[in-house]
């Protein structure tokens, strides 16, 4: 079931340099969203089209997203004053699929790829799974200050904290369970090379978010393009033709 609700901004906090968490009151979405699903937000005044954001946390009636300003839409969102309304369409897309525990999941996130992880950790725990989280960023100041897992591991491109390298370099072999990853597409390509069965949340431009425009094409190894907003945004890493998927968002991490 999808909802389109007027959602007032209710909270805002900084979680890293230039990285913010915004909370919107959107009860029906908050109550039903699953890890890896997203909301498509409309701002008026604002750009013509909606902007898609993974749900970061869902708490009671509030849906949280995490973002940085990269263009007009994200700038408008970060300019919102408390109580200002956006139109929130969601929950949209297919999220992470988890089997009940015992077992272990390994969350791997690069930069803003942390977005779907708190919900993934929540759902994994609820299924009795152990959660390890490996998070990477360009530098210490850009690491998300919030994490929610049984064990954490950090990586920075400049070595300012944690492993000197990418999130992938920081995954302890001992911790490798079922891998759920999100980050720049080129990081996800590296994940796919190592763990074809990993579940990855990809990004594409989106025209509608509801499956009608075919703008969010994801090239599958089966040869077809399908829709990130409908069959995705979560895919088996090995099922995507990474070379044909644009890098898009310039996340502040290298893969």
């Amino acid at each position, binding site marked *: 079931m*999808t909802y*389109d609700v007027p959602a007032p901004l209710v909270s805002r906090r900084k979680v890293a340099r230039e990285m913010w968490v915004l909370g919107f009151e959107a009860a029906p979405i908050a109550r039903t969203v699953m890890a890896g699903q997203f909301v498509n937000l409309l701002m008026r005044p604002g750009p013509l089209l909606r902007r898609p954001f993974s749900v970061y946390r869902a708490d009671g009636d509030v849906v949280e997203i995490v973002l940085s300003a990269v263009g007009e839409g994200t700038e408008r969102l970060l300019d919102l004053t408390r109580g200002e309304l956006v139109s929130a369409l969601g929950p949209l897309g297919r999220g992470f699929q988890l089997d009940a525990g015992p077992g272990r999941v390994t969350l791997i996130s690069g930069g803003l790829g942390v977005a779907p992880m708190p919900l993934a950790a929540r759902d994994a725990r609820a299924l009795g799974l152990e959660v390890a989280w490996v998070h990477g960023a360009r530098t210490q100041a850009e690491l998300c200050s919030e994490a929610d897992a049984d064990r954490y591991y950090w990586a920075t491109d400049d070595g300012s904290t944690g492993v000197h390298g990418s999130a992938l370099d920081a995954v302890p072999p001992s911790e490798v369970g079922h891998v759920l990853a999100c980050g720049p597409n080129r990081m996800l390509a590296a994940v796919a090379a190592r763990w074809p069965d990993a579940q990855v949340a990809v990004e*594409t*431009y989106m025209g*509608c978010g509801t499956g*009608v425009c075919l703008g969010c094409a994801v090239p599958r190894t089966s040869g077809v*393009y399908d829709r990130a907003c409908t069959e995705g945004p979560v895919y088996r890493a090995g099922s995507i033709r990474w070379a044909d998927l644009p890098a898009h968002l310039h996340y502040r991490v290298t893969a």
Partner: protein
Amino acid sequence: MSGSLDVGGVRLKSPVMAASGTFGYGTEVPLCDRRHLGGIVSKGIFLQPRLGTPPPRIAETPSGMLNAIGLQGPGVEALIRDYAPQWASWDFPVLVNVNGETVGEYAELAARLDGVLGVSGLEINISCPNVREGGMFFGNDPRSAAAVTSAVRQRTSLPVWVKLTPAVTDITEIARACEEAGADALSAVNTFVGMSFDLQSRQPRLAFHTGGLSGPAIRPLAVYLAHRTARAVSIPVVGIGGIAAAEDAMEFLLAGCRAVQVGTATFVDPNAIGKIVEGLRRYEELLRPPD
């Protein structure tokens, strides 16, 4: 605006339809108040399945968007098998947007769809590259536009609408050619070809390089072209381009259109059409001819 109306042999439930490629096959869009749908035009279809173009396929521009989907689709057989049966049970008409690379392909597609339950009419998309003529759009030239129209006309008993290409020197020339070739109505207009560059890569933002511009940005251009078309032909004209509110639809109706189609606005608000039809109630008296 309440009450159904006949447009080019198709009985619409309201004057506001969903435009091709922006409402899928009518099964996808959530939250749309279907009681208000005048009818829908399905995503453009070819005889054979098509993969479509590589991503990125869309890019936003001021008050508009560029798209290059490449007419991705399952092909006519899958459409007849998977969608037509559902359409047959709906209380609003579904037109199929037919595409081809040769006149023959259009004709064969029309023949295959003739008499298929659930299909209320055909809308010919002549904004397709004509492979026999160096990839020039059929819709850029009165002769090829007429050739496609009459070929389709001869192979089907269904109402035939022709959807005009906007970027031509004289749209009335094409419009009249299609009317003479047997079109029952004209849809005006399709997207305008545009392009945008990404500064990081120095490359076009779309993998296909060029794309079709849609959305409010093109509305004044579309109103003008629909107006010229409506004055040039005696068959009904269906206005398309940048309609996002009842006021926008009214501009096309005042310009001489009998109905309108809404595209991009459905991406912004899945229930855009429902709201437009409700909003049109305010203007009913405006539509009566001035006394």
